[in-house]
């Protein structure tokens, strides 16, 4: 096996500049949306006192979950010593940081008072899982930053495995924290479950790798660098395992809830008669986001096509967004049960399925977060040596002839 040679991309082509411009438009639109929402107040969004977390949270939580998942490739190389993944470790760390930046940007800009971010950073209530998460996010930047540093500076290479191990433990903790934001909500039947934390971890594997695969394909296609079948097939097959794993957790989550008599109402809502949420669950999350990608990735002939693997990765991302929508919005749309078994009515929409329609500024803010993640990657690979010059089979596979 040859040693991977990391080289910056040239980043002067018209295509590269067009990419930056394209992403920049989305980022500007996101900032404009924020100004609009904060100036007028959140009543101009689709969010209400019933659906208090809307589209920005769907994007933000998706990106934060995907961020820790994107680090997986690096972990597999540093913690589990799979040398084939080693050339990809730097990009994996970079993508993890970039996705977290994008997710946090959306989360912060949707706050009622984003100008008070300094309060969130200086005043901690240590009983709050949200406060723990802020510490986990900041720690993630620090630890993954150091991890990348040990990979890039030759005389620090000997510390990479320690930094990689710390980053691996940290990322598992971080996603446990993200899942627990929902898992700890005892008041709502749709959440309130310990399975949220491990389910979010497996979801992160799947979302993070799907994004990683697309970024890798784009970077190597657009720069004309070779990307061999060995590494591509390995990643593609691993993605399939993660998708199946995430689906397994979804099945267990719903079966457990169905078994509890007190939770049957919310399960009927999501699985049978919840309108848009039921459709998003079965068509978006299960069919398009899980079953079709599995078929595309593992089918004897389709599974050989890179284009179809790319389609599968894109579908997994869309399915993941659908899943987030069902969890976050669907979970709030189902009314709180103040009096189990009774019909409750009020002027505040008690006992009713809550209505939500995402507004354009919310969607633009979310897309802006995604664009921020992507532009971070695009700029970083131009200034620093993140990408191996070649991922051809002979570079990646020690036994390839």
């Amino acid at each position, binding site marked *: 096996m040859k040693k991977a040679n990391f080289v910056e991309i040239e980043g002067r082509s018209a295509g590269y500049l067009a990419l930056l411009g394209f992403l920049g438009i989305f980022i500007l639109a996101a900032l404009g949306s924020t100004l609009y929402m904060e100036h007028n107040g959140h009543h101009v969004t689709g969010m209400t*006192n019933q659906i208090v977390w809307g589209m920005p949270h769907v994007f933000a939580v998706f990106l934060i979950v995907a961020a820790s998942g994107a680090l997986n490739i690096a972990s597999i190389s540093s913690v589990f010593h799979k040398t084939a993944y080693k050339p990809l470790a730097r990009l994996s760390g970079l993508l993890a940081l970039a996705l977290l930046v994008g997710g946090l940007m959306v989360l912060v800009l949707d*706050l009622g008072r984003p100008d*008070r971010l300094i309060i969130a950073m200086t*005043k901690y209530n240590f009983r709050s899982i949200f406060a723990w998460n802020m510490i986990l996010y900041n720690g993630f930047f620090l630890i993954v930053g150091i991890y990348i540093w040990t990979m890039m500076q030759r005389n620090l290479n000997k510390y990479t495995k320690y930094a990689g191990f710390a980053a691996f433990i940290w990322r598992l903790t971080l996603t446990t924290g993200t899942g627990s934001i929902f898992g700890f909500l*005892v008041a709502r039947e749709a959440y309130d479950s310990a399975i949220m934390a491990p389910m979010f971890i497996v979801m992160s594997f799947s979302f993070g790798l799907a994004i990683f695969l697309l970024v890798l394909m784009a970077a190597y296609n657009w720069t004309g660098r070779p990307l061999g079948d060995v590494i591509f097939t390995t990643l593609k097959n691993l993605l399939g395992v993660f998708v199946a794993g995430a689906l397994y957790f979804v099945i267990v989550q719903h079966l457990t809830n169905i078994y509890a008599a007190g939770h049957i109402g919310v399960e009927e809502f999501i699985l049978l008669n919840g309108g848009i949420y039921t459709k998003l669950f079965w068509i978006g999350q299960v069919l398009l986001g899980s079953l079709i990608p599995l078929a595309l990735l593992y089918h004897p002939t389709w599974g050989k096509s890179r284009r179809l693997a790319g389609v599968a990765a894109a579908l997994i991302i869309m399915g993941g967004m659908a899943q987030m929508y069902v969890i976050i919005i669907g979970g709030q749309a189902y009314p709180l049960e103040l*009096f189990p078994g009774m019909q409750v009515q*009020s002027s*505040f929409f008690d006992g009713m399925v809550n209505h939500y329609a995402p507004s354009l500024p919310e969607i633009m803010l979310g897309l802006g977060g995604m664009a921020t993640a992507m532009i971070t990657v695009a700029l970083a690979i131009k200034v620093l040596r993140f990408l191996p010059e070649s991922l051809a089979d002979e570079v990646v596979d020690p036994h390839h002839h």
Partner: protein
Amino acid sequence: MSNTESSKNTELTRRKFLGTAAASAGLAIAPGVLLFRVAQAKPAAQAVTSKVRWGMLIDSTKCSTGCNDCVTACKTEHHLEGHNRPETDVQWIRKLKVTDKQTGHVMSLPMMCQHCENPPCVDVCPTGASFKRADGIVLVDRHICIGCRYCMMACPYKARSFEHEEVDDQAVSAPRGKGTVEACTMCVYRVDRDKQPACVEACSEAEHGAMLFGDLNDPESEISKRLAEYGGKQIRADLGLNTGVRYQGI
């Protein structure tokens, strides 16, 4: 030399002036301060104590479906005018109509912040803006609320509202602001002056007598006696929050 002298003189005059000013200001304020102390049961300087736990007892059998007196009183007291947008307008207290699906029996009751002993909103708040006073009243510090709305996700009673719009015409006693979360304060500034919350006052002034306010820790208080004799239920008692608001007839 003359410079130093003149500055000494200035210093003296300034001191004298300040002294006289302070004395006259003191004279002017004194009667007000004295009156204030007389009128107030708990001096403002005295810390809130956990010896008391403020609570409410609501008798749903005396609460009629059509009556909205407590809600109106709350809106007037705290200047909670809406913008005619029911989905985003704030509600600190609302009336619930609860129908037993099996029997058709109908109950009516007001729902607001239950001032839990173990409030989930306080647990989840990242900055500590959601807090519980020693006397059991759960409040939001509007200065450090960042508007994340996690407390609204955590509250089982849907007691909290997010301020979705600019607020004008605020009540001095209830500062509010766009982008932060708010809820029933149990009229804390009235309670501190030995008065009843506005909703309770309105309910008793209209002679409905469905709401009773008092100290749950004092066995001699009216609320404690009534709870001891007739009992009272918590809504969602299964969550173990030990609410400060109790209900009869549910």
